[in-house]
């Protein structure tokens, strides 16, 4: 296979796998732009994966494949509720965002396995079927692009890309976005402008819950075919994407797709002769090392929201 062919061959997988990360990363974007650091994306994704798998299994006998689609909004809602724990701690109780986020991750891991073991006994929920791949007739015949975008895709990919566009529009073209971003940059300015920092930060965190819940659900239904008790660090990959993409929707798109390709190559390397000799560990660690390198290179002009991680206290300036 030529390099191009290999690339095209890997694309459906790479793009597919990058979408759940993109969704969670967008969630992180809303949270951090509002001023709340959220390292609990992993846990929120896990809760989404659990909820989607559970709902799918429960509803499948009654309504068939529609169960998978119905499970997505349910997963978003459950993860949103779960993220409310983080919001309450960080926004209303001045908790340290990192500690609360860690608790969120640990809670998610413990709760989901606890409940799934209580329900199924094994801690694993198998979803038969799940969301299937789809090749667009006609469009998939377009050279190169057809193969990348329209072959073996999931409908959820288009949903998440639409959410990306919507997120960009919300953040940069509406007063909601302006207000949200001001809470992350200078909450005192926001407060003086009559914006409720508390409200916006809640919205930011809850959106992160819903979006990462969606990401977890999509991963569970498209790739894992159920809940296995882990989301394999995808939430942290989403966090890396957020940083690598410099807290910007298009940057995040670029970094998630980039990371998607890296992990896909690493996963298939063992079965592809072209990569047989290649130490796959380099590809596996690439996203994390790249993120650190980006931080090193841009250490003087940080793109992080200035007030992210800081409690807002009206009485101080």
């Amino acid at each position, binding site marked *: 296979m030529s390099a191009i062919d290999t690339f095209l061959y890997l694309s459906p997988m790479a793009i597919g796998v990058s979408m759940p990360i993109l969704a969670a990363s967008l969630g992180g974007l809303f949270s951090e732009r509002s001023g709340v650091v959220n390292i609990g994306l992993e846990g929120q994704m896990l809760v989404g994966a659990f909820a989607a798998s559970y709902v799918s299994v429960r509803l499948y006998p009654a309504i068939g494949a529609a169960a998978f689609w119905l499970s997505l909004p349910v997963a978003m809602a459950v993860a949103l509720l779960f993220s409310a724990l983080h919001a309450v701690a960080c926004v209303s109780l001045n908790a340290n965002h990192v500690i609360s986020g860690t608790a969120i991750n640990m*809670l998610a891991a413990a709760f989901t396995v606890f409940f799934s073991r209580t329900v199924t006994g094994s801690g694993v929920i198998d979803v038969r079927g799940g969301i299937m791949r789809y090749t667009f007739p006609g469009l998939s015949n377009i050279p190169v692009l057809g193969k990348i975008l329209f072959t073996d895709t999931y409908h959820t990919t288009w949903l998440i890309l639409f959410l990306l566009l919507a997120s960009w529009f919300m953040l940069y073209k509406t007063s909601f976005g302006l207000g949200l971003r001001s809470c992350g940059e200078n909450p005192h300015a926001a407060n003086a402008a009559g914006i409720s920092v508390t409200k916006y930060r809640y919205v930011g965190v809850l959106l992160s819950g819903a979006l990462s819940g969606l990401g977890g659900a999509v991963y569970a239904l498209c790739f894992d075919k159920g809940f296995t008790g882990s989301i394999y660090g995808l939430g942290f990959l989403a966090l890396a994407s957020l940083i690598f993409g410099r807290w910007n929707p298009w940057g995040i798109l670029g970094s998630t797709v980039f990371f998607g390709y890296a992990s896909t190559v690493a996963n298939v390397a063992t079965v592809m002769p072209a990569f047989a000799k290649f130490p796959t*560990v380099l590809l596996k660690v690439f996203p994390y090392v790249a993120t*650190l390198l980006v931080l090193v290179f841009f250490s003087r002009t940080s793109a992080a929201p200035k007030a992210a991680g800081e409690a807002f206290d009206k009485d101080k300036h």
Partner: protein
Amino acid sequence: MKRLRVPKPFIFAVAAVFSGFVAGALLMLIIGKNPIVGYAALFRGAVKNPAVSLSAVGQTLIMSAILCLSGLSLAFAGKVGLFNIGAAGQMLIGGFAASVAVYRLPTDCPKALTIAVILVVGAFGGAVWAGVAGVLKARFGINEVVATIMLNWVAFWTVDYFVRNYFPRDAYVKTTSRVLPDAMSLRLQWLEKIFDSRFVNFGLFVAVAMVVLTWFIMNKTVFGFELRAVGANRFAAEYAGIHAGTGTVCAMLIAGALAGLAGVTYYLGYVTSIQVGVLPSYGYDGIAVALVGQNSPGGVAAAALLFGVLRSGKDFMTIETGIMNELADCVIAIIIYFSAAIMLYEKLSAKLTKKRAAAPAAAETGGGKP
């Protein structure tokens, strides 16, 4: 700026632990179990019948020792204003480095030397791993939380790769590293005899020694004062001529070394091989230990015992009552959550003492500016 003035930190720590247990009880009620029976089984499981065998006690103690070391790692960094969320990765690297090193030793190597090599290499491995984050912070101002999270996953995949390709158990099982014979580990026969358990190992003494050592460094030495100064206010520390960057790197090196020791106690003592595909949960539980222990070595030791009991009794609880052992993990996570949300208790205690509401900052007269 962080707000650190907590009037009764000890009471809040106790309150967080209490909240965790209450939440655990609620969970048991939700799944239709009796929480009193559940907790009774949990605590019984941590000691069982010591008159017959000390094995459960030993198990609890050695788990506490691992938690204590990883808790000390977080507490030491915490005193210097750093959040070492990467203890898990440092444990993994320390454990892996020591496993590889110990295999290089001649077979007739005296046990004392073997133990020394394990401890030194393990501590060194953890220190290097954490030191990277320290340097990134000191030199480039990169948040240590982000750096150690990334390094956790780098450690995760690196160890995964090397174990699978160069250090697997055998030709069939590649997800576990080669199993070390007891002679090449921290296990000691006389300890095994006392506790009737192979898990109990030399790490127990290491943990006790480290509690004393970190307390001494922090509270009695000039070096400890300098580190605490950097942690409390790095600008004032620099003003006093203390190099904040050096302090940061030193603190991370020591925190990493402590995590590395936790790693060898676990991977070369409690078990004798490394399972890939998972970061050691002791590294994250160390957060709970440090939080509840208020970053003080004595507090960490006490908290480690508590969480050691939780961890060690949970399987017995499952067998006795059918309550899934993840319940203990839930309780630990909830305790972390409530330790973070300390304001909750402040608000509660303000409400309880009614009208005496907290004084707004505006009341400060002629104060030190923002």
